[in-house]
């Protein structure tokens, strides 16, 4: 287990694991470094590797939003739908961090995954 429940990030990982024991991978990621503050996996997905790539995805989208000059707009989340998996990136802490969650799409849908992550946003402010 790559987390300690004495930190907010570790506590968030633990809370999500409690809600979704069948999740495939989870991480709380710091966007400025692309590194996980806390992570856990129940599969062969390495959440720390994913963290680095997903940080770039978030930055690219922020660039696209800047080009559109959208006013009063913030990014809530990014959902990546694969053949059998959902990868959800939920922005938290005023866009400085994100929670990354991988679930099997047969077991968990978008609504459930979002609900579980939303419950952690206050903890990670």
């Amino acid at each position, binding site marked *: 287990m790559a987390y300690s429940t004495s930190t907010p990030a570790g506590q968030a990982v633990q809370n999500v694991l409690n809600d979704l024991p069948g999740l495939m991978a989870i991480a709380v990621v710091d966007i400025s470094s692309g590194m996980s503050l806390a992570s856990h996996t129940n599969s*062969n*997905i*390495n959440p720390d*590797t*994913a963290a680095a*790539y*997903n940080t*770039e*995805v978030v930055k*690219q*989208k922020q*660039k*696209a*939003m800047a*080009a*559109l*000059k*959208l*006013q*009063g*707009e*913030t*990014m*809530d*989340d*990014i*959902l*990546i*739908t*694969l*053949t*059998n*998996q959902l990868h959800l990136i939920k922005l938290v802490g005023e866009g400085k961090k994100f929670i990354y969650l991988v679930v099997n799409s047969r077991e968990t849908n*978008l609504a459930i995954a979002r609900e579980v992550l939303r419950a952690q946003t206050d903890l990670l402010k």
Partner: protein
Amino acid sequence: MGLFSSLSFRKRSQPETVAEAVPSAEAALVPEAAVAAAAPGAAARAQAEELVRRVGQELPACIAVAVVEAATGTILAEQWAGPREAAAEVAAANAEIVRQTRQCLEALHLTDTEQLADILITLRHQLHLLRVLPQAGWLLYLAIRTEDTNPALIRAAVQALD
């Protein structure tokens, strides 16, 4: 979001666009798959225009719809109500998002069993969808106001394109 969302679609004159890009009548006879793989020719552009038109029909509230070449981020066809000068940059950034996501799947060794279907980005007032089209190397980008639709509806509409 005021300016961006209050504008309506700029209608494109389809026959004109096709006419100026057609070097010879042969282009229209090339099989679809070959066209999609080659540099965007007239037939490919016509096909892309048709996809954009169908999405516009399914989801009339869209702020922007574009068919984009994934490798280059080049727009093949679009209906765009946002700032015109931003279109190319936005398409390129979104193509880059798809490229990064695919790299991520490779780094995670998922490509044997998993394929990217789509990427849905939820903003406070807008939904942006990036969908991998069956045509080799094409992406669909669409932006729509959150209040006008929901993710399940968008997905149903774009799945109808396959």
